[in-house]
């Protein structure tokens, strides 16, 4: 009996192993539980691919999404449609990296209580987005594919990041069997996930490089006969502009002048500037990996460089990157990094508050100042100040040629007004002329922005 009862300690050894293993697990619980809860697909946080934690409001306090019990979107159809790509859908076709990024700040997790909360609805996230601006942009883009982005170049708040087409998440169309083409690429968020041939808006890059590296560029005169030959390639202009200075060349978007400037800058300088201005490669913004931009002149001859300098060749830019560049010009050469999440509140605690992050200076202040003047001149002399209400808008249009298709209409710039310090980009696929199609869209959106911001100022 003595022997047997001694040997029975083997059973106790197993029990101790059980306790030891359990202890290890409890230890790893305390270290890792937060990662387990936030892991995509975690059932109490995610519905399908999207996290559901709390209520999401726009900058004016409008409820965009309530996830207390399932996903309840805004009561306004246009708002639902215009914000769905940011908030994600119910079925997992459209994911919401923004919410995933802030999920850990939003749901009430701690290792003691897990996700238990005795006051549901206490988590509120306020976005920098304005539902009104968002809806205005969505309506402006109606019938087109493309994107409109607007942000405060002083703070970095994105007021608008709209993609078209979209749909109402409360009334999901039969996308798979759609033959009209109106839902082509509907699952793509064109603001973050698409890059576009910039066309003439890229002349703002060439101009910046020229202003900083060619000393007499502002006193130069360019001669446009409608076309020219650079490096054996024929550069065709959109008109016969005759004799022009730099301001005139930019205002009329003269391909000959900018082709020549690009060729003079050379591949290396142009490439350097594109990189310095943040237009190449990708960057991450609020959980999104912004679509990669591309300015690749490594194999380019003089003709290619000329085409690249007027935004053709193989140039590609993303909306956030170009928007940030507009911000840099408007803000004296230093861009505020764009963001979407203003604040997360959990009960009485603020668990996240956005801060303005300024980039390194990408342009000399005088370059930014000169570009501002040139862009202001564009609006005053070509696009028409009347379009923009009372706002002092500086802009550049683009008509990006696409082989065998209607050109993409592009429009980018900013407002100088201190009451509405916003930069904007409008990219319209197959829209045709930038100044004719994209500029009026920008005008509408800017008007709404001005209203929203002045209402905010009045409320303060």
């Amino acid at each position, binding site marked *: 009996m003595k022997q047997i009862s001694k040997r029975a300690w083997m059973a106790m050894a*197993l029990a101790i192993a059980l306790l030891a293993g359990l202890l290890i697990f409890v230890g790893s619980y305390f270290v890792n539980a937060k990662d387990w809860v936030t892991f995509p697909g975690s059932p109490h946080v995610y519905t399908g691919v999207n996290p559901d934690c709390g209520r999401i409001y726009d900058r004016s306090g409008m409820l965009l999404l309530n996830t207390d019990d399932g996903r309840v979107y805004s009561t306004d159809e246009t708002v639902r449609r215009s914000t769905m790509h940011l908030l994600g859908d119910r079925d997992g076709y459209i994911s919401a990296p923004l919410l995933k990024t802030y999920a850990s700040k939003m749901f009430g997790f701690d*290792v003691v209580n897990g996700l238990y909360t005795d006051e549901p609805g206490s988590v509120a996230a306020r976005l920098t987005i304005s539902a009104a601006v968002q809806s205005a942009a969505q309506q402006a883009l109606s019938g087109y594919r493309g994107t409109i982005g607007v942000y405060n170049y002083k703070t970095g708040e994105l007021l608008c990041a709209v993609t078209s087409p979209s749909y109402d998440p409360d009334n999901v169309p039969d996308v798979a069997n759609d033959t009209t083409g109106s839902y082509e690429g509907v699952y793509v968020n064109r603001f973050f996930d698409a890059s576009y041939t910039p066309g003439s808006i890229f002349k703002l890059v060439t101009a910046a490089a020229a202003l900083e590296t060619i000393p007499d560029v502002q006193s130069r005169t360019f001669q446009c006969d409608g076309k020219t030959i650079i490096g054996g390639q024929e550069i065709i202009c959109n008109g016969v502009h005759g004799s022009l200075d730099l301001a005139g060349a930019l205002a009329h978007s003269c391909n000959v002048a900018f082709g020549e400037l690009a060729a003079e800058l050379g591949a290396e300088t142009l490439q350097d500037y594109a990189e310095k201005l943040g237009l190449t490669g990708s960057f991450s913004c609020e959980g999104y990996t912004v679509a990669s931009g591309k300015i690749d002149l490594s194999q380019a001859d003089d003709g290619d460089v000329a085409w690249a300098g007027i935004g053709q060749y193989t140039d590609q830019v993303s909306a956030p990157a170009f928007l940030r560049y507009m911000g840099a010009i408007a803000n004296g050469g230093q861009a505020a990094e764009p963001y979407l999440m203003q604040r997360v509140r959990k009960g009485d605690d603020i668990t996240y508050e956005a801060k303005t992050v300024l980039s390194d200076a990408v342009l000399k202040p005088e370059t930014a100042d000169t570009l501002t003047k040139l862009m202001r001149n564009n609006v005053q002399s070509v696009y028409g100040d009347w379009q923009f209400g009372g706002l002092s808008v500086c802009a550049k249009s683009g008509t990006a040629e696409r082989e065998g298709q209607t050109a993409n209409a592009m429009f980018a710039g900013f407002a100088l007004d201190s009451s509405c310090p916003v930069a904007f980009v409008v990219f319209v696929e197959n829209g045709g002329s930038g100044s004719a199609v994209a500029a009026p869209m920008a005008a509408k959106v800017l008007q709404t922005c001005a209203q929203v911001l002045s209402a905010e100022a009045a409320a303060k």
Partner: protein
Amino acid sequence: MQEILTKFLDTVEQTPALLQLDGALRYVFPLLALVILIRCGKSLLMFRREPEVWAWLAGPTGDRIPVMHWESLIGRGKGCDVTLEYPTISRTHAVLTRYDDGSWTIMDAGSTGGVFVNGKQQSLSVVRFGDVLSFGGVEFTLVPITQEQERIQAEARTRRAVVRPWLTLLLLTLFQMLACAQLCVHLPEDAEAILSGFLALIAVEWGLFALLRLAKRRSFDVETVAFFLTTMGLCVVSTSAPDSIRKELIAVVCGIFAYLAVSWSLRDLERAKKIRYLAAAGGILLLAANLLLGVEKFGAKNWMQFGGVSFQPSELVKICFVFAGASTLQRLMAKRNLILFIGYSAAICGCLALMNDFGTAIISFVTFLIIAFLRSGNFATIALACAGTGFAGVLALQFKPYAMKRFSAWGHVWENAATTGYSQTRALMCIASGGLFGLGAGKGWLHHVGAADTDLVFALVSEEWGLLLAVLCVAAIVILAAFVVRSLPQGRSCFYAIGAASAVTIYVVQAMLNVFGTTDILPLTGVTFPFVSNGGSSMICVWGLLAFIKAADTRQNASFAIRLPGRKEAAA
């Protein structure tokens, strides 16, 4: 009943204060469970280890050596139960055995000096009080203990029984009523089934308590631990499969019958020894029938169907296995080889592997190892068995891609979160979601995952009741193991000791595979957590095994599996 229930639910809905109480309850549950387990642990682990003395051996110098077990190994060795320091006595010399009827035998355990009874050399002989036993020339007399000694001894053994079992059971009942109330509020659609389930469980536990009291058994701690775990099982079923509540309760009742039946069969060692053969044969037959007539469910062919009832024979085989492994000391010393038992175990594990029931095969194998070690104390045999099984296991895995797949996910569940690691990652997410105190009864999500209420039950309990309560469930199993190990030195027969140790090993290994499988410490093998996992056959099995633990419980008047001195003896 429905009226009361509707009224209750309406009242709760209309009283916001009660809803706040609902939030506070999440702290009450682990606290109550802790108190219940501490009380059970106290009475199971702090009892006075007063040995029972069954007779004396009066030596040549007039000294009296107590005989404290029914089966005592006599010899010079330190490991002997009766150590006799004489050079002519062999290290292990003889086995002195007492029987249920109070008769004694002595058996020569291969000594050099031989065993003589009243001057005649014997290999196995009956011994009467007053007989002169001679071991290697040293003479002893077997002397009975007096009634007076017996009385004093019984008194000493009951002196420190301070924990009142009815109070612990009352606390458990409170726990059950609160759990039931919360489940009903959170799952109003199934409230009626849940309420009747809990009422039935409360009736069953108090019924058993009363029954054992009638049989003059005063301790109820082992049973209370089992009922605590069973309660968690009922909570799990209430959320995951409310339609199965009735089935689960029928299984609990059957399990308690199995517990009483096995206890009864163990009360009489002679009866137990006979039933042992029956059980061993029954185990093999059950598995053979399963192999021939079984039905495949969830990738394992371990189900049999009779009429509308389906059950898993492999669960019941565990009881048979423990029976087959148990053995008296006399038998152990007479036949020292393990070959028959190794063969039997191999047959059982082989059948289980053929059925694809890897979980039960692993449990049987570990139990086999423990039994083999208890019986032989020999690590070499066990190492050999391990090597052989490891080899066979590798071969089996080679041929079973399904099992291989499970193993491949092990340790990489997050990389395969949507595929092979789906169950474990959901389990971990839900454990984390529940925190230490749980999301509340019926508020879980994990039950949507396949086999959540069986293989992943640790996570399901964690999610709804909190990690603390899940840890307490494991602690309950560890308490039982500690109790067995602590009470064995006072054990009467090796048969009971081996039975209890192997039964509790089955609990521990099941808990281990279940918890560690769920939490990705080990591969997920699909093993149930004793008493807690949903499953009728497994419930019956674990309750049946509880009888083996009770058979080793030699505390005074504690166990139904141990016969009290009969009226005849008392009269004499």
